């Protein structure tokens, strides 16, 4: 397929792998965090680790939309879905995320009308064709997916679709990154920046990382060559003593972001004072809710939800995995009590979650040589 296959060229991959080798300082161990779950997925899916020397370690970050949803929010969603006459819509990954008692898939098996959609616009279409039913969209994701929710809500308002509403769980990427950088137990050498988020917000929001924390950031695309090249760019910054935000994904990411999308976000959403992140606890000003102008579409206003904070299961170490403090296999329940088919933690559910990616793709002994 054009414009995709070019970025999966094995020969070029080996060439970039060679470039990476020549950029390394002998004996030094490098830890690079890929912020975005999409990168985590690509890294495992294409076996990018195999093209890196052992002393370049990739650490998985918090940017997996499903992984950061706390149990209480899943319970809220299920409570809405169980209302008579409700059609509950969400992305496929959400169906298997465990709440305190059950998943949305379980609720569906008990009779709730839960439907998987690929876009919030599909949910709006369902609302239009079922005017006698209440249609709810469970919105998740970072700044990448928030504009499509915002656009859908704008359209619903313009068309006067009264039977549509949204449980908003949209989050923003900068607050958890800042929290990570403040945490003393993690030494990172650089960041692979979230390409899709940057398509919307641009490069500027990440400038605090080199400015305040002296770490390089390279905004990266999602194909294997993109990721390898971004790792090379980070290592080159380190070698040359530079610390800045560079953009590898120039074919998609404008430095200023997408001003139109940002405008729509500002119109439809406002910052929540605080929001609970799975495993990371409450982070202030880290999530979005519907603005006053769109309050009528807020499912949390329209339906009674428990709104109760549910503590993460004791055995689950998703928080440490999301912060990159431990590797998935270092979690006590990884692969035994917690598997993709019976997940305890969210990181084992989403294909972008570090645990699921490692379990599904990376779960075999590999031997590598240090440089």
């Amino acid at each position, binding site marked *: *397929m054009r414009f995709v296959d070019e970025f*999966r060229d*094995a020969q070029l991959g080996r060439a970039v792998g060679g470039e990476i080798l020549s950029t390394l300082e002998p004996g030094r161990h490098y830890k690079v965090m890929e912020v975005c779950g999409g990168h985590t997925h690509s890294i495992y899916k294409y076996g990018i680790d195999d093209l890196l020397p052992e002393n370049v370690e990739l650490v998985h970050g918090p940017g997996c939309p499903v992984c950061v949803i706390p149990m209480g929010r899943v319970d809220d969603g299920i409570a809405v879905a169980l209302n008579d006459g409700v059609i509950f819509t969400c992305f496929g990954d959400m169906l298997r995320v465990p709440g305190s008692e059950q998943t949305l898939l379980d609720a*569906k098996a008990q009779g709730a009308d839960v439907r998987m959609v690929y876009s919030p616009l599909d949910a709006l279409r369902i609302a239009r064709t079922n005017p006698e039913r209440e249609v709810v969209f469970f919105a998740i994701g970072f700044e990448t997916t928030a504009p499509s929710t915002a656009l859908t809500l704008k359209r619903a308002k313009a068309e006067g679709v009264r039977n549509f509403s949204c449980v908003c769980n949209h989050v923003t990427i900068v607050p958890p990154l800042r929290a990570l950088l403040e945490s003393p137990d993690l030494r990172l050498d650089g960041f692979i920046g979230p390409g899709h988020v940057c398509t919307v917000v641009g490069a500027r929001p990440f400038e605090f990382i080199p400015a305040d924390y002296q770490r390089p950031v390279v905004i990266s695309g999602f194909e294997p060559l993109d990721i390898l090249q971004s790792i090379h760019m980070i290592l080159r910054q380190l070698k040359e003593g530079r610390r800045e935000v560079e953009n590898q994904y120039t074919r998609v990411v404008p430095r200023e972001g997408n001003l139109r999308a940002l405008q729509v976000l500002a119109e439809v959403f406002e910052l929540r004072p605080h929001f609970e992140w799975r495993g990371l606890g409450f982070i202030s000003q880290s999530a979005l809710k519907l603005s006053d102008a769109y309050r009528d579409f807020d499912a949390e206003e329209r339906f009674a939800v428990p709104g109760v904070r549910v503590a993460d299961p004791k055995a689950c170490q998703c928080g440490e995995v999301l912060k990159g403090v431990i590797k998935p296999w270092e979690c006590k329940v990884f*692969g035994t009590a917690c598997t993709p088919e019976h997940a305890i933690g969210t990181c084992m559910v989403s*294909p972008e979650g570090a645990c699921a990616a490692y379990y*599904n793709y990376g779960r075999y002994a590999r031997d590598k040589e240090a440089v």
Partner: protein
Amino acid sequence: MSAVGREERVLQIIETARSKTPRFRDQQVTLAHGAGGKATRTLIEGLLVPAFVGPEGGSLAKLADAGTVAIDGTTLAMTTDSFVVKPLRFPGGSIGELAVNGTVNDLAMAGARPLALTVSVILEEGLGAAELKAEVEAIARAATAAAVEIIGGDTKVVERGAADGMYICTTGIGVIDPRAQLAPDRLAPGDTILVSGPVGEHGTAIMLARNEFDLDAELESDTRPLWAATDALLAAAGSDLHCLRDATRGGVASVLNELARASRVSVVVREADVPVSPVVHAAAELLGIDPMYVANEGRLVACVAPGAAEDALAALRGVPGCEEAAAVGEVRAEPPGMVLVETSFGGKRVMDELVGDPLPRIC
């Protein structure tokens, strides 16, 4: 212990846990139990097989596509399959055609020449007569094409809402070909893995036919009978043909996982050699689905001893509909029970069983 050592130990513990017979512990049936992946295996191996197979074992315990029974020196293969596909008609086929091909293919994969079928239909009150007639004709046509006689059947009608249009169940009987020595536990290191053509077309065609994604593409289901391909492979490779599977629900990936586990071997797939049509590639890319997990209804996976692989592939390519057959991987000893992929990009990864279901009611 070093980090690498600790990681390997964790992986070993996981493999031990995975190799145990799964137990059916779920509180209720979910769509995942019908997806052909891990949950389906839990249902079959954790609930059905233990209930039906006694301590002395039996044909069912082999978990082949068809069971066998010997009568006066002749070994017969028998199998049954139900069809609940939505929509009833889709580009390249319909539920009636699937119902015949699905069952004759399960016989063929056991090395049996299909002889006869029974057909049972469950009809929903209100189903249009034209739709019903079209499917009856489709069944008749497919049976003629597959050279099987329909020798019995049953009809039931349920109230509106208790079924979705129509469901079909077919049961088939065939006679095991004397050349065939096929079993899921016959894979040996060095064997070549063949697929009979581009993968993922049936599932993708159904997905597009449901119009849920606003994607339009020219793509037809690959539904077809596979006895001709089986016959050609048996003629070319004889007992060097170790195993056949049709890659239906769960796709090629699930088939390879089943075989690797049954034979206690590893299968290594070369991603770049797997035939995938441009339309399936593009749709899978857009929807975030791996074509290796998408259902086929007329594609087989064959495991052939190394000496016979070249002849088997040539013979397969001579069968109409299998012109694009390819050798996509090989069997190795280590790590047992696992399927690995050499990615086109030059890395390596696990290709596991399917967990969730991207799309229910595919067949």
